[in-house]
Each structure stands twice: as structure tokens, then as C-alpha cells.
């Protein structure tokens, strides 16, 4: 079979997982929309939809993992997966680019304009007289009330060190996998998972402090909006990455992956480095500057 896989194309059989995924997605999103409109039932069907999506992922990834472990995938399939993951990460880069772009546009243009710079003199004079542009700001309307920001060189700096170390530990795990040192692989991968969850724990603590002590909320004008959307979407991606890391940790313990055939491991590692790089951007532009 293995030698056959090398010399012809691989085309998978039909699959019921995509339609299950679509049903889960529509259930979840239509419920989310109804929930936002105040429907009492929708908050339950929302979780049902999410459960269907998770069920789909278990089923779909399970099928792929079984097929991969059975040696059905040749180098061409492996390369298709690599291209797929690469371009998926590119789409994620563009998603974060929107929110970073928003932050830059607001800080470089909108806030100075509201303060009367450039062509904003009339706006400032007639609508927001006396508004002095600063950063952080919740706007000339003082929307959301007074707030304090989170200092960069506290938990955020610690979190930077944690994520950078996790980038190192996953690389060490990768080297161990290539050298077929299973114990070391599991050890470094477990360390990566642990660091990921510690990072998330700190983020949760930071959000809790922001809401309870600093007065910094999603409604704190444009600062609160950019701060929570950027760090929030990053946090969701770290959560997803940490779950992915946990999955491959269990797969490593089960004995999956070979030194020359471990796409899933590499895909997760790429993803993890991606959330790492996004965090560096966040640390510099959201916390430090």
C-alpha cells in the first residue's frame, strides 16, 4: 500500500463531516444572533451548535489522523496540508492586521483630528471644544468613565517571557521528535502546553483586575475597544493553540508521528509561533507604547 500511495494520486472518499459542520455553524451563529436580540431559548441552542461543531472536529480530525497513521497519505497530500495551513495562517495575519490597523489609524489620525489637528479644527471647535488629544483616551465624550491602564512591565512583560519560552520549548520538542527521543518530546511539549495555560491564566487575572479595579472595560471608549478586541482575539487564538498543543501532546504519548512524517505537529508549531509573534506586536503597540 505504501509504495502504491507514492505513485498515484490520493483522492479521499465522501465525508459526512462537512455538512455536520455546516449544521453546527448555522445553529451556533443563528442562535448567537437571536441571543443578542434577547431570545431566551437561543442561549441554549448556541451551546448546542458549538457542541455539534466540536463533535464535527473530533470526527473529521479523527478520520484524518486514522488515515494518516494508516500510511494513506503520500508526500503530495502532505504538501497540500502544508499549503493549506500556511495560507490559513496568512488569513489569520490579515484578520489581526485589521485590528492593528484600527489601532494605528486611531492613534495617528483620529484622536489628533478630534483634538483639532489638520482638517479637524472645525470639528474640535464646534463639537468637542476643549478636548485635548492624549493616549490612552476614551474620547471627547469620556465614554465609559475614568480608567487606568495596565502597566507593560508587570504581568504583560511576564507573559511575553512565558510565550517566548514556549516558542523555545516547542522547538526543543520538535528536535526531540526528529531525533526520535520520545520522552524528551513529551516532556518539552508538556512544558509548552503548561506555559500556554499559565499565559491564559495571567490574561484572565489581568482582565479581572481591569474590570474590577482599573475601571477599564470594553466600553472605555476607543482605548477599551482596541485593547480588549486585540488582546481578546489573541487570547482566543492562544486558547485554540493550547487545545491543539494538548491534542498533539496526547498523540505523541500514543506514539503518533515519525521523524519524517509529522505534519500535524508542525502545523500546530507554526500556529503557536504565529500567536507568539502577534503577542510581540501587542506587547509593543498596545502595552508598551
Amino acid at each position, binding site marked *: *500500500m505504501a509504495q*502504491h500511495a507514492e505513485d*498515484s*494520486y490520493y*483522492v*479521499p*472518499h*465522501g*465525508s*459526512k*463531516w*462537512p*455538512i455536520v459542520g*455546516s449544521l453546527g*455553524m*448555522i445553529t451556533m*451563529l*443563528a442562535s*448567537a*444572533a437571536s441571543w*443578542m*436580540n434577547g431570545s431566551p431559548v437561543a442561549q441554549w441552542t448556541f451551546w448546542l451548535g458549538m457542541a455539534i461543531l466540536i463533535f464535527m472536529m473530533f470526527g473529521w480530525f479523527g478520520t484524518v489522523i486514522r488515515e494518516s497513521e494508516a500510511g*494513506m497519505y503520500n508526500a*503530495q497530500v502532505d*504538501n497540500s496540508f502544508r*499549503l493549506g495551513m500556511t*495560507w*490559513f495562517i*496568512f*488569513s*489569520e495575519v*490579515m*484578520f489581526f492586521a*485589521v*485590528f492593528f*490597523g*484600527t489601532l494605528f*489609524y*486611531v492613534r495617528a489620525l*483620529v*484622536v489628533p483630528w478630534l483634538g483639532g489637528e489638520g*482638517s479637524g479644527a472645525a*470639528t474640535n471647535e464646534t463639537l*468637542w471644544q476643549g478636548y485635548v488629544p492624549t493616549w490612552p*483616551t*476614551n*474620547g*471627547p*465624550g469620556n*465614554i*465609559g468613565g475614568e480608567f487606568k491602564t495596565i502597566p507593560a512591565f508587570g504581568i504583560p512583560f511576564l507573559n511575553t517571557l512565558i510565550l517566548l519560552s514556549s516558542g523555545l520549548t516547542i522547538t526543543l520538542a520538535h528536535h526531540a521528535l526528529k531525533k526520535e527521543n520520545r520522552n524528551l518530546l513529551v516532556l518539552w511539549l508538556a512544558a509548552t502546553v503548561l506555559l500556554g495555560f499559565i499565559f491564559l491564566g495571567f490574561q484572565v487575572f489581568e482582565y479581572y483586575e481591569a474590570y474590577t479595579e482599573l475601571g477599564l472595560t*470594553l*466600553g472605555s*471608549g*476607543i482605548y*477599551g*475597544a*482596541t485593547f*480588549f*478586541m486585540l488582546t481578546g482575539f489573541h487570547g482566543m487564538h492562544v486558547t485554540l493553540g493550547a487545545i491543539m498543543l494538548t491534542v498533539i501532546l496526547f498523540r505523541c504519548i500514543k506514539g503518533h508521528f515519525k521523524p519524517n512524517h509529522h505534519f500535524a505537529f508542525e502545523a500546530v508549531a507554526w500556529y503557536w509561533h504565529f500567536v507568539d509573534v502577534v503577542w510581540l506586536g501587542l506587547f509593543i503597540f498596545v502595552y508598551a507604547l
Partner: protein
Amino acid sequence: MTTEAIHEDLNEAHDDHDHGDHKPTGFLDRWLFTTNHKDIGTLYLVFSLTMFMIGGAMAMIIRAELFMPGLQLVEPDFFNQMTTMHALIMVFGAVMPAWVGFANWLVPMMIGAPDMALPRMNNWSFWILPFAFTMLLSTLFMDSGGPAAGWTLYPPLVLQTGSSFAFVVFAVHMMGVSSIMGSINIIATIFNMRAPGMRLLRMPMFVWTWLITAFLLIAVMPVLAGAVTMLLTDHFFSTNFFNAAGGGDPVMFQHIFWFFGHPEVYIMILPAFGVVSEILPTFSRKPLFGYGSMVYATATIAFLSFIVWAHHMFTVGMPLQAELFFMYATMLISVPTGVKVFNWVATMWQGSMTFETPMLFAIGFVVLFTIGGLSGLMLAITAADFQYHDTYFVVAHFHYVLVPGAVFALMAATYYWLPKFTGNMYSEKWGKIHFWSSAIFVNVLFFPQHYLGLAGMPRRIPDYSPQFADFNMISSIGGFAFGATQLIFVGIVWHCAFRSKVRATPEVWEGSRGLEWTLDSPPAYHSFNTPPEVTCNALSRAD
């Protein structure tokens, strides 16, 4: 050995693991669980035709209301829902899925592959769409009605949308997920599944234009997702992205939206360029003139599409430097586009031309798309745009590039490849009737709108001043006739698929070249089970 025989042979070799190379027999297996690029392509095309009819019906309501001055048929709010939904349906439901459908059918056959690179994901990219559009259309039946703020969803107006708002946002998210997955698949297929010898610069132009389109899609659909997400949080979760009192800016939404929106218009037109570059050589019996320059021109257009977005918002009060930059950058696009039009004309120059229906639509495309391009140049002039902005001149411009542009190219592609897909010839007589009535009525429909716009008639209004009455009546008559003409198209496609007795040869057309024409009509369920060797330029467009 025929393709059929190769196909059977490989089935036997594969029987020991369940590849399922046989065409599935059950209805659900065939259409719902499918991983086959041809079946998924068919699903996309049928879906798109359905949406084309729904969006077209909305356009009929718009033209009926505008037939005469005054309010006759619909409430103003419903009129605004129609303009908004017509655009969303046509852009995301009709034109884009139609191109993905053609890409599904054609890219594997053109590059010598058995199927798409990621066949299961291919299924999912399609099967998200019917759910997304059911949700979008369902908003018309909610208490608040559908979205009515225009397809560009500008705040603060769009934030006044009632209960349908969140449904619209999530429908847009789903369309984005579908487009991104479809594009990833197309890029992976083109980079990874080409037959030996199918070098990048030997690929058919349709494959090239789709490669670049897919890149644009992956780059900008997440931007749209981000933009509508910010609308959602502004509406429901007290953020202030687009509220000046909180330090935000409603104009910022326009910047983000058009950073998506301008590449989006090339997403709809680049595959059309590819199709026309396939059809003109066939019926001119000459190779495409300037293949290399076509590829580079397409890439240049794609690059420029990222740095021209603010020409959609010249009148919002941008700094002068920005107005000038976006004006000059926009005008630059006419250079690579001019290269393309020149190459198409040069391809036909001294060719032994025949005028079958696909060729008629392709020539119609070159002429009428160029009219749309020229009115685009007028709009690009910042100072002049202050007069044209938000008038029917804009409506005329983008309908010229989208209807006798993208939609004509879709029609051309349908007539050109439908015999390959179905194995039957369509009715040439009815095809020609369809072309000539489309070509005449599309001009009756949209050309007077230039004059309306120059005279100052604003877009997106159900009522107008009486001096605009004559041109509006002409435009509406053209609209009804153009709409009715498209029913002929549905009939022709149905006849070709199910009733036609005339069998198509593998080549179908006398001058056709490329790998898809080496396969039977209709081709085997999996196009190429072993890679064909592409050794000479005879099978490609480049020479």
C-alpha cells in the same frame, strides 16, 4: 487506452482501501457528502444561478419602483432593503460562487490533476453557502425587515438596523469562511497538483487569474470579517470603534471596508479576464497575444487593488495628499488593464474568427467592459468625483463592469465549457438570441443611467425629481427585457444538460487547446488518475 479505461484500471488498484473512486449512486452520497470537484463545481454553479435569479428579482422590484417618479409600489424602507440585498446576493451569492464553481470544474482538468488538493474541505466551502444565504434572506421576513443601509454597511446608519442586524453580520462571516476555504483549496491545488511539465508560465490564463484571485480573497475576506465584527461589538457590546464621542471614527469603517471592497471588485473580474483570454484565442484560431504580459498585468492589477481603496470615499473629507495619492494610484490601474484590452484585440487581429455564442459574449465583454473601465477613469478624477459621487453615474459604472463585464464572462464561460461538462451541445440558435437580446437590453438598461447621474440623480432613492423621468423609464424597460432574457439562459442550460441530442466531441471547438479538451465530454469522474505529461506548448496557451 481511453480515459475511461485508465479510470477502471486505477479503480481496481485502489479497491483495497476505500478511496471510493466510483461515482456514488445515492443522492445524499452524490451531492451532500461529495468530495468530487465536478459535483461540487455543479453545486456551486446551480446555487449561483439560483441566487442570480433571486437577486435579479430584487432588481426588477427596484426598476419597477423607479419606472415613474413618485412612490408607487413599495415602501421606501423596503426599497432600501432591496438595493442592499440585491447587492449582497449578487456579489457574494451569484458572481463569486459562480467563479468558484468554474474553478472547481476547470482548474483540476486544466492542470492535469485528479481533483482538488483538499477535497473534503472543498465540500465544506460549498455547503456553508446555502445556510449563510438562507439566514441572510430570512432577514427579509423579520419584524425589522432586512438590512437597508446599503451593502457597504456604513455606520452609523447600519447600526440602526433592527433585529436582522446580527443575522446579517453572521451571514457575512459565513460567506467569508466559505471563500477563504475555497481559495486556500484553489491555491493548494495550483501549487501542488500540476502535472509534470505544467510549469507556472505554461498554465492557462484562467488558472493564473484564479491563482491571483484566490490570493486576493485570502488577503481581504478576513478584513471584511474584522470590519463587521467591529460593527457587531459597537451595536451590542458597547465598543466605540465608529463613534467619535468615544474617540472612534465612522469614516474609519469606510477605510477598512474599502480595503476589502476594492480588491473584492477584482476578485469578481479577474477570473472573467481569464475566461476571455481562453475564449478569444479559440475562436480566432490564434494563440493568445502576449501571454506573459497578461500574467504580469493581472498581478499588477492585483497589487494596485490594495492601494486605491479611498477612491470610493473622495468626498468624506480626507487630507489633500490622500486624495491625490488615491487618484493617481487609481489611474495607474488603467495601464495593466489597457495592456489586457490591447492583447485581446491583438489576439483577434488577422485571426480566422468565427462567432459562436461564447465568442460573441467574449467580444461583448471586451467592448462593454471597456466602457465601464472608461467611466471608472472619469470617477477616478478626484475633483470630478465630487460631482459624480453617490449618483447614478456610479451605478452605471459598476454595473457596466459587473453585468456586461463579469456576468457576460460567466455566460461566455457557460457556453464555452457546458458541452464539456454535460457532453451535449447547447442550442446555438437560442444562444445567439440570448446574446443579442442581452447585449442590446443591457445597454438600454444601464447607458441612460450615465446621463441620469451626470444630471445629478442620487442613487439609493425610491423617488426622484420629474426631470429624470424619461431616462428612468427607458432604463426600466431595458431592465425588464434584460431580466426576461435571462430566463432564456436558464432554458438553454436546462436543455443542454437534459434534453439536447447533439453529442459533444472531446475537443468541442475546432480551435480549442488545453488539457481539458483532451478528456472525453463529459470527462471521467476523476479527471486525471495519473499525471499527464505536458511536454510541449501545444497544450498550453503560452507560445
